């Protein structure tokens, strides 16, 4: 039987999603639900002097208006709660858009009307909102979960001194926002001291933990449900204040409360990619061998949290270099806390990949050859293998398909009528961590299987891929298997972020399914009514829902037969801790530039990745499409604009914040090496975020090739190319 894993099967939840059958958090209907709305601060720094809710409370239908004076007291949860404070607990304002009141009413419109009538007076202090507002205020933050903020290997100064050619340049990117289609929503329902949260979260277990800490209640009194997510991209991975406030308000009022953030509120309530600036210095010997990589970066932090999210591990994880210095500085600004956004490893890699392109021109060396010359599979931190061994194959797969060998490296050497054509490339890379997960599988007397795991499907295809994993491990057709997720009553799993879901969850699901299969085989061989009675369990295989004796395939039984004779379902569990790893690939980009208007169109994108064994070619390809297209936005259009005077975000909507539309999407081809990773029971590596990490650099490099203009400050808007 050909394996189910890898097949490009359509999404098992696709029908529900396109017919409206998929119920997202905000779709949850709870009898007697009331509606919450946040009123938010209009200054970025200072204190509330007075807050008058008289008019708001007089609005018909208003049930309560909570301010910092009346809100129930909450505990500020420790990290990984990313905020460092809980709003509505004191008068201090830390950023524009911070909640200053929580209104609950019978209808959403009543709540919104009341929120608009709250009169807040502030003592405002001058705010700093851009790196340029705070020169000299950068500092080296303390070590975070990923380790120290500075990494030194060898002698970088000597490496640069000995270099034949050097590039020393500064690269920058602005604040970005995630913009998932589904804005964050919370429905909090208390039943006595039991809380059910219908939540749009990338981590139900973290939500359970953080809400329990904030409310000072036992974790097991909280159940979190997230059957569907309309994207997250990191914005829903942490637990943000709106969830804590909604749970607290619902408890206080003894009524279910629903809160759905507006699109504009998403720009101040659920993290963002920090403004980032890096000085990258690379040196190489005449033959292209790197002699030094130095990456000194600076990024925005908030006044209340100093964790660094835009990280520089690509400085030492992709290219073997004897002399490396990476330093991750931060600067505190009066903005919301930044967080990770697909991919936090992207900004640093974008700088490195642009610098290497510049170096290739200094050396007169092909950019692909320069990378092949230097790629490494050894981590200089610990001397262990990284898992990059197939990067050269990725460069070849994508480069050949793109036609890279036909490239004339001279800038402005290709044109079509008025348009300049350019080809550029970049390596893509992303790490994935170890996350424990557990799963439960039950085979019912009707021969159907049910698998459960407390993971999430952020839209990437977890339902589908885990159905494939379960069905393959059991030897059942996919339509005999149902996979359920998104419920803290299920065995726990980690968050669906950091590219770890498939790598982590596939292991426990596979183990649980194999244990259930083995249990059924054991029943069969012990059952005098089974044709398999007395056979050796290791001589039995399972396929299509049947059990066969390998030596004599006429002796067969079925899951339904065995379990129905057994008279009750067979259950098993499995737990797994994946091995952390690193996933690499390469993207090749063609752009066409109108030099008179500065307009760039990305017309072709070809990419290849080593993601271990491909779990599902359709969903894996979709990850590439999403990453590539988002990379177009990163390179050309996306930019959260913050007014320097008022500290307000000027474009908190999808009309002003320009994500790519269909007309911006190039033709995309995706290739996979498709070799199983030996550390995973099913061969999977982490993948989600890798596509996008190099794309902005590849586009910028292609624009240089087209125009001879090196734009180091993203996005590359039209005016910058005139």
């Amino acid at each position, binding site marked *: 039987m050909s394996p189910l894993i890898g097949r490009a099967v359509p999404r098992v939840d696709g029908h529900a999603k396109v017919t409206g059958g998929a119920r997202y958090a905000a779709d949850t209907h709870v009898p007697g639900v009331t509606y919450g709305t946040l009123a938010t601060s209009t200054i970025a720094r200072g204190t509330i002097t007075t807050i008058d809710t008289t008019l708001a409370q007089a609005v018909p239908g208003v049930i309560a208006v909570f301010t910092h004076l009346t809100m129930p007291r909450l505990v500020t949860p420790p990290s990984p709660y990313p905020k460092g404070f809980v709003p509505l607990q004191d008068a201090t304002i830390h950023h524009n858009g911070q909640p200053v009141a929580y209104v609950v009413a019978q209808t959403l419109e009543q709540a919104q009307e009341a929120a*608009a009538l709250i009169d807040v007076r502030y003592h405002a202090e001058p705010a700093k909102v851009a790196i340029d507002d705070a020169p000299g205020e950068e500092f080296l933050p303390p070590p975070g979960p990923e380790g120290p903020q500075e990494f030194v290997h060898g002698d970088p100064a000597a490496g640069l001194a000995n270099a034949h050619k050097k590039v020393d340049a500064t690269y920058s990117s602005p604040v970005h926002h995630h913009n998932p289609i589904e804005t964050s929503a919370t429905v909090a329902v208390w039943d006595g001291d039991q809380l059910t949260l219908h939540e749009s979260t990338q981590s139900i277990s973290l939500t359970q933990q953080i809400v329990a800490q904030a409310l000072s209640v036992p974790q097991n009194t909280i159940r979190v449900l997230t059957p569907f997510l309309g994207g997250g991209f990191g914005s829903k991975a942490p637990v943000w204040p709106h969830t804590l406030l909604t749970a607290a308000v619902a408890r206080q009022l003894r009524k279910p409360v629903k809160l759905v953030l507006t699109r504009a509120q998403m720009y101040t309530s659920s993290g963002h990619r920090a403004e980032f600036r890096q000085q990258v210095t690379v040196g190489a010997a005449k033959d292209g061998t790197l002699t030094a990589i130095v990456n000194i970066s600076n990024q925005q932090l908030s006044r209340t949290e100093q964790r660094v999210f835009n990280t520089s591990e690509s400085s030492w994880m992709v290219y073997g270099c004897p002399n490396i210095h990476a330093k991750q500085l931060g600067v505190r600004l009066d903005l919301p806390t930044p967080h990770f956004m697909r991919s936090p490893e992207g900004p640093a890699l974008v700088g490195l990949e642009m610098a290497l392109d510049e170096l290739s021109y200094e050396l007169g060396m092909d950019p692909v050859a320069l990378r092949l010359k230097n790629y490494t599979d050894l981590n200089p931190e610990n001397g262990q293998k990284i898992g990059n061994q197939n990067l050269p194959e990725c460069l070849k797969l994508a480069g050949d398909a793109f036609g890279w060998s036909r490239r004339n490296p001279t800038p402005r050497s290709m044109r079509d009528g008025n348009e300049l054509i350019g080809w550029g490339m970049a390596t893509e890379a992303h790490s994935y961590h170890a996350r424990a997960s557990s799963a439960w599988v039950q085979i019912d007397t009707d021969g159907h299987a049910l698998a459960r795991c407390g993971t999430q499907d952020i839209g990437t295809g977890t339902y589908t891929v885990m159905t494939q994993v379960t069905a393959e491990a059991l030897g059942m057709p996919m339509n005999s298997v149902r996979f359920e997720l998104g419920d803290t009553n299920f065995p726990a799993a980690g968050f669906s972020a950091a590219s770890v879901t498939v790598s982590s969850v596939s292991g426990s699901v596979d183990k649980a399914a194999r244990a259930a299969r083995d249990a059924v085989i054991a029943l069969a061989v012990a059952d005098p009514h089974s044709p398999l009675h007395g056979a050796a369990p290791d001589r039995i295989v399972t396929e299509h829902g049947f059990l066969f004796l390998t030596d004599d395939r006429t002796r067969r039984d079925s899951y339904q037969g065995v379990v129905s004779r057994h008279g009750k379902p067979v259950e098993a569990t499995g737990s797994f801790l994946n091995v952390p790893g690193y996933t690499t690939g390469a993207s090749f980009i063609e752009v066409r530039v109108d030099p*008179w*208007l*500065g*307009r760039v*169109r990305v017309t072709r994108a070809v990419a290849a990745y080593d993601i271990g064994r491909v779990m599902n070619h359709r969903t894996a390809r979709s990850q590439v499409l999403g990453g590539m297209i988002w990379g177009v936005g990163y390179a*050309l*259009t996306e930019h959260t*604009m913050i007014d320097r005077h008022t500290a307000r975000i*000027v*474009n908190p909507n999808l*009309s*002003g914040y*320009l994500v*790519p*539309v*269909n*007309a*911006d999407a190039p033709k995309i081809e995706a290739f996979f090496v498709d070799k199983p990773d030996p550390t995973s029971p099913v061969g999977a590596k982490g993948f989600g975020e890798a596509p996008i990490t190099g794309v902005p650099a590849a586009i910028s490099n292609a624009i240089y090739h087209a125009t001879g203009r090196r734009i180091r400050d993203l996005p590359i*808007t*039209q*005016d910058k190319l*005139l």
Partner: protein
Amino acid sequence: MDFLIPSTFAEALAIKAERPEVVPIAGGTDVMVELNFDHRRPTALLDLTRIAELTEWAPSENLLRVGAGVPYVRIIDELGDRLPGLAMASRTVGSPQIRNRGTVGGNLGAASPAGDTHPVLLACDAQVEVASVRGTRMIPAAEFYLGVKRNALEPDELIAAVHLAPAAAPQQFSKVGTRNAMVIAVCSFAVALHPEQGRVGAAVGSAAPTPRRALAAEEFLAGELSDAGLWESPKPLLDSVRRRFGELAAEAASPIDDVRGTAAYRRHALAVLARRTLGWAWQDYCGTGETRSQSCA
């Protein structure tokens, strides 16, 4: 808020006379955004979508009368041959869903300086037919736009239709956006050749408080074309002529810096758009009729 649903235009005019503060809504592509962002809170909306007569177009004397409620998609599908400039501008509006709902009447009612159809209406000498219980009057497009989102309608008036001559010669429209679709214009430009009048219509969008005719560019080009006898025996335009036309078109603008682009970029891009659109239109003109010239191809 009241939602008023007249089924005839006369009924709508009666309501507007009685309650001039009501906000007319057709496709809703502008009004609904303003409501959703709480930028305005009208006491009543006047739904014009049930009024059949607004959704019709027909020849009217030498002109085409296009009802204010004809959506962009129908202008593209049904009038693309006769009103090519308006159809080009309509194609650049929003997404298919927006083009199914949005109307030229709505574009005029909102009178945003960035409205996509305005430069075409100006370049094509469109007349806006407005009506009230007091009667009907025609306002030339050039006199319709008074300021940022302000137009020449009296409080009791509604837009009934626009009147445009079927194109007798090539027309072009071009727009620069911040991405390839679904954007408000950074700047836009329309040009329409009027050989029967020996002149050219030209107008800029999204680069001044109102859409605006580029009069100096029009006059310069009319002079150049007439002096060289090019209307009668078309030849390719000199680069210097196209360039000067572009410069004068850019000078017609008084742009600002905003989130979509800088004033300097807008001026530069307008010059490019004007030069290009004129080049395309003139190339088409050279390629038509008995005076077809190989050198123009």
